[in-house]
C-alpha cells in the first residue's frame, strides 16, 4: 500500500510549482510585475489610447474622504434637514406629522421640487401648494394652507361635492 502511495498514480502526484525567476506566486496564480491591467481588459499590451480610456473611468475617491449619500425620502417632519451644500433631487418626498397649530393623526406626504429660484411644496390629493425661496418656509406655507383650508371648510357647508370629500379627509387626519 505504502509502496503504491509512494509511486502514486498520475492524479495523486503533487509536484511543487516553482515560479520562474522574477515572477511572484500568489495563490497558485503567477503575477508578473510587468503585467499591464490593460491587457486584462482586452486592450492588449499597447498603451495607445490609454489616456482616452482613463478619461472614461470615474475619478478615484481620496482615502481620507467619506462620501455620505443621505436619503431624505423617509425623513419625518421633525428631522427634515437639508443643508445648502446638498442639492435637492428633482422631486423629494417628505413626511409631515404636524401642522402649525394642529397635529396630524396620520402623516401626510409632501412632495418638494425645485421651481425657478425657489421650492414648490405640494400635497398629493389636495389642491394646495406652498412656494418660497427657502425649502422649510415652502413646507410651512403648505402646512398653513392645509390649516386654512380646514378652518374655511369648517366655517360653512356651502361647497361642492369635491370639497366635501376633502373636508371629510381632513377631519379624519387632523387632530384638533
Amino acid at each position: 500500500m505504502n509502496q503504491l502511495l509512494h509511486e502514486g498514480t498520475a492524479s495523486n502526484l503533487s509536484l511543487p510549482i516553482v515560479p520562474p525567476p522574477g515572477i511572484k506566486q500568489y495563490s497558485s496564480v503567477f503575477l508578473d510585475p510587468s503585467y499591464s491591467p490593460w491587457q486584462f481588459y482586452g486592450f492588449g499590451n499597447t498603451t495607445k489610447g490609454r489616456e482616452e480610456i482613463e478619461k472614461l473611468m470615474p475619478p478615484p475617491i481620496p482615502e481620507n474622504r467619506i462620501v455620505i449619500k443621505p436619503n431624505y425620502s423617509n425623513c419625518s417632519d421633525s428631522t427634515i434637514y437639508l443643508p445648502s451644500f446638498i442639492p435637492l433631487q428633482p422631486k423629494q418626498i417628505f413626511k409631515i406629522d404636524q401642522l402649525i397649530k394642529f397635529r396630524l393623526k396620520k402623516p401626510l406626504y409632501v412632495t418638494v421640487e425645485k421651481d425657478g429660484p425657489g421650492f414648490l411644496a405640494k400635497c398629493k390629493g389636495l389642491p394646495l401648494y406652498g412656494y418660497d425661496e427657502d425649502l422649510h418656509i415652502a413646507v410651512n406655507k403648505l402646512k398653513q394652507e392645509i390649516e386654512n383650508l380646514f378652518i374655511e371648510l369648517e366655517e360653512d357647508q356651502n361647497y361642492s361635492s369635491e370639497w366635501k370629500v376633502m373636508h371629510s379627509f381632513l377631519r379624519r387626519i387632523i387632530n384638533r
Partner: protein
Amino acid sequence: MRANRIKRACENKLGITFREGGEFNGWFVYNGIKIARVTIPKGRKEVPPGTLDSIADQLKITCEQLKYLEKCPFKLPHYIFELTDKKLI
C-alpha cells in the same frame, strides 16, 4: 406672468374676493356654492412655471387658459363653460 396681475385678473374677471394672510386666498363662488379655491403668492414677482401650473390646477383650467385669463380673451362666461364642461357645476 406676474403674481399681482393674476390676482387682479381673478378679482376683475372671476369676481374672486381674496383674504389676506400669508398668501392671498380666495374662493370662486357660483350660485352661492364654493367651487374653486385659489392661492396667489404676494408681491409682483414673476411666478415660476410649477407654481403657475398649481394655480391653474386650483382654478381647474389649463395653464394656457390662465394666460388668456390674465391677458384678455378668457372671461367669466368662458370659465363657467369650462367648469360646466368638466361637470364641476
